[in-house]
């Protein structure tokens, strides 16, 4: 088989179908203005899964949905098997590529791959976005047996609907999910939009992910005294907002000390939030991320230390709380090494980079080897209606996956002999 120097011409039909399928998915939960809202455990998310299964069936694959709502299409029988996929849910007013690009790309790969020795399956994970229930990667975590029943039962959305009742209203029962994601998976491959600007800036068409950042989420509750803004001299104040502001700067300063750390204060509630009252109470959240668990913890520890000093100095009481803790994950080296080779062989410009956002691949990596491919997205915009990526890049990534899986198949077979 001859390998074309650039993939674009031979990939044109695929790119066209990728574009059509993405448009079709974008109509499920589509909004005026181009946005898409397909929240976890809603009929809209289920509609997208039904569409996925219909496409798989049309290609001759059987498709089943587990009690967590993860849909798996079997393109080639056999164990162990290659698993390719991503997710179909979105955030509120999200875009049409986050997740969907990976599922549509995976279908292209599975349809084009031709016979291999191991099995081939495509997965559309449920509830990857933490948008609705505050906890991301629910579907993959349940399939990997990494989420216990107690934690599951506690999850609620902003309206107070529990995850379990939301799931049951769309015919699912996550608590009954068997942990099927494990030794049978020879390797998991996920294609995803980058959600950043590194590829675009370096004019690379493909990103190979080496590590996926985790996160530590903290809530800092600061209590001072809500006094009258006119009658209270400056030296007699215990201003919770002034203390909180110093904490925000300390968070920024802590993250700046280490190149691999990012930290954000994204939410703040001020009480009583009144023009003429010194803020008596402020609650803020801190999101700390790193690709190394130790550095991530160290940064979170430094934030807490700084906040404590600020609170003591200002006579404000601090009550910190750890909201969630997701450890970062280093991805397997060997599938990535195979992907390097395929990129080089095809003359595709690529970059190795870490992922600052979490993904299903980080969960799967705890149970099986996993690899992740990024494609550029315009201006790095994501989780927004104007999220944009090229169907041609998705087709290119699908083709690379095809070749990498065929090569892996041969290597695994040889290694087993």
């Amino acid at each position, binding site marked *: 088989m001859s390998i074309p120097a650039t993939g674009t011409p031979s990939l044109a039909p695929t790119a066209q179908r990728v574009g059509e399928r993405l448009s079709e998915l974008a109509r499920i939960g589509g909004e005026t203005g181009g946005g898409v809202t397909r929240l976890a455990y809603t009929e809209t998310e289920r509609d997208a899964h039904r569409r996925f299964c219909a496409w798989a069936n049309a290609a001759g694959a059987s498709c089943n949905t587990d009690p967590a709502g993860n849909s798996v299409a079997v393109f080639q029988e056999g164990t162990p098997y290659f698993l390719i996929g991503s997710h179909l849910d979105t955030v509120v007013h999200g875009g049409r590529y986050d997740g969907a690009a990976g599922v549509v790309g995976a279908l292209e790969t599975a349809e084009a791959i031709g016979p291999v020795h191991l099995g081939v399956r495509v997965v559309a994970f449920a509830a990857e976005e933490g948008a609705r229930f505050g906890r991301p990667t629910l579907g993959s975590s349940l399939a990997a047996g990494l989420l216990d029943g107690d934690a599951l039962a506690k999850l609620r959305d902003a309206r107070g609907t529990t995850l379990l009742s939301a799931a049951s209203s769309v015919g699912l029962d996550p608590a009954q999910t068997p942990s099927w994601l494990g030794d049978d998976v020879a390797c998991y491959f996920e294609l995803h939009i980058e959600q950043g600007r590194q590829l675009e800036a370096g004019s690379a068409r493909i990103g190979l992910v080496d590590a996926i950042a985790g996160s530590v989420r903290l809530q800092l509750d600061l209590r001072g005294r809500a006094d009258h803004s006119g009658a209270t001299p400056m030296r007699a104040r215990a201003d919770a907002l002034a203390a909180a502001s110093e904490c925000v700067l300390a968070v920024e300063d802590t993250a700046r000390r280490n190149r691999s750390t990012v930290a954000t204060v994204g939410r703040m509630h001020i009480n009583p939030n009144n023009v003429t009252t010194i803020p008596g109470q402020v609650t803020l959240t801190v999101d700390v991320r790193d690709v*190394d668990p*130790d*550095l991530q913890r160290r940064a979170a520890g430094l934030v807490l230390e700084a906040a404590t000093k600020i609170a003591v100095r200002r006579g404000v009481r601090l009550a910190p709380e750890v909201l969630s803790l997701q450890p970062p994950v*280093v991805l397997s080296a060997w599938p990535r*090494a195979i992907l390097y080779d395929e990129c080089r062989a095809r003359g595709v410009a690529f970059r190795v980079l870490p992922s600052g956002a979490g993904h299903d691949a980080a969960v799967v990596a705890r149970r099986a*080897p996993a690899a992740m491919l990024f494609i550029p997205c315009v201006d790095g915009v994501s989780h927004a209606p104007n999220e944009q990526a090229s169907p041609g890049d998705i087709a290119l990534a699908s083709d690379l996956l095809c070749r990498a899986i065929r090569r892996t198949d041969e290597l695994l077979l*040889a290694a*087993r002999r």
Partner: protein
Amino acid sequence: MAMGGRRRRGTLPAEPFTPTREELRAELAGDLSRGGYVLRGGDGPSGDRRYFDKFLVLCRPGLLTRAARLLAGIVSDECERLAVTGVPSTALATALAQETGLALLLADDTHPGRFGGDFSAGTRVALVEDVVFTGGTALAGTRALRAAGAEPLDVVCLLDRQSGGAQLLAGDGVGLRALFTETDLLAQPGQPPR
């Protein structure tokens, strides 16, 4: 991690973020077993298709720090210096020196057989290696130290690939202290296929 679902109010700030040794060890083992092995197309020198990618840990600051913190616990109390001969191992030795406070002896790149750094006859030394396979490189290192007048106690390494290294070194009166054996790492999930 133990503190996953724990919610505490007003606890001593840094405390929830101080990992136990076992947590650090589990994390490092997980990262190394997931990311450390490379399945290669061609047959390697030993016909083995599975290689441990030592550069994964030697090139990443977080992994290097964790490795050094854990290795510090297995350097013997009698040891007075850390010695290093290979370039990649120097990254690990540097991190370990910073962690333990032990001074380094660096193989002199312009004068073969000599070591830079202070030592005298009989100074007890641990040789730092990244990965020990058959032990040939490590043995050459400990012999060079002995020839230079130092007393090599043992070889401290990140990974013992259990391919005769410990036996070879023992034959020369040198111990092998490894943070992980190949068996340890392959027992982790996300391992390369065997």
